């Protein structure tokens, strides 16, 4: 059974890019903001979440906090995407509970590796 990845990004082009890139291997669910995503999460359980930092209605920081407050998604891996590349932003995301951080524009292959690493951590280690 395919693993489910939830993508949250307000930019449609990014959502489409990620969906096209990931749809062969994963079941991909796209949402355009954190509020929509949280409502979806009340009835669904993804294996991994990819989330933009800068979004309308609810930004990525608040979204991670809310996801970590939920018992069901407390340990769900989160990869953050951001247009701002600096260590402060990365540290903030890590402290809130994100597993990884990728600055835009990014290489989809790198994202693919991060997804693999987070979905199958032991398997990924064995490959080395």
């Amino acid at each position, binding site marked *: 059974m395919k693993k489910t990845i939830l993508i949250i990004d307000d930019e449609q082009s990014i959502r489409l890019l990620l969906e096209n890139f990931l749809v062969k291997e994963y079941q991909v669910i796209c949402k355009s903001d954190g509020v929509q995503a949280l409502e979806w999460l009340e*009835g669904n359980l993804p294996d991994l979440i990819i989330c933009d930092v800068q979004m309308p209605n609810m930004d990525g920081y608040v979204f991670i*906090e809310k996801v*970590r*407050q*939920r*018992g*069901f998604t407390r340990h769900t891996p989160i990869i953050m995407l951001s247009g701002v590349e600096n260590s402060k932003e990365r540290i903030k995301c890590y402290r809130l509970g994100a597993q990884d951080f990728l600055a835009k524009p990014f290489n989809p292959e790198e994202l693919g590796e991060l997804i693999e690493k987070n979905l199958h951590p032991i398997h990924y280690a064995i490959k080395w």
Partner: protein
Amino acid sequence: MEKAIKILYIGNSFENLLDFQADSRISITHRHNALEAIRYLQKGGSPNAILCDMAISGGDGLEMHALLRKDPQYLHIAFILLAPEFNEDLFKQAFHDKVDDYFVYPLQDLESMLSRISFLVEYRSKALLPVMEPDEQKIEYIMPRSKRIFDILCSRISSSSLTFAVSHYPRDQA
């Protein structure tokens, strides 16, 4: 002043919820088992959320949840299951049964729990609102008089020009 969030705790680990009891924003009622909890609800107790231990006498947390969800008058109450340790099967079963959330002792900090409970309370009340279908608006199109006159004139001109063209069409070319 009435407290913002009313919680019913069912179980025997109340020592884990002392922070809740001390907070002025929360009113917490403690019942030890399912029977006591049902009696409390039937007597008019109206909590916003129920925190229920998985292991309770006279049943378990999942049974309590199933019992509660059978009665429509309790559908608005958020139900959070509490367990002493993480159990993957229970985690999956709780999610499958649509329990609102599942936490393992010790609970996370009070502010996070309160934020989560507030979200669930709001979410459940929103989810229970009947979906109002907007009335179908019957829009009757009324053609403006000016357009009607324009159409008549155009049709007259085109028919007369067609008649003219046919009458002047050279017969030998036909």
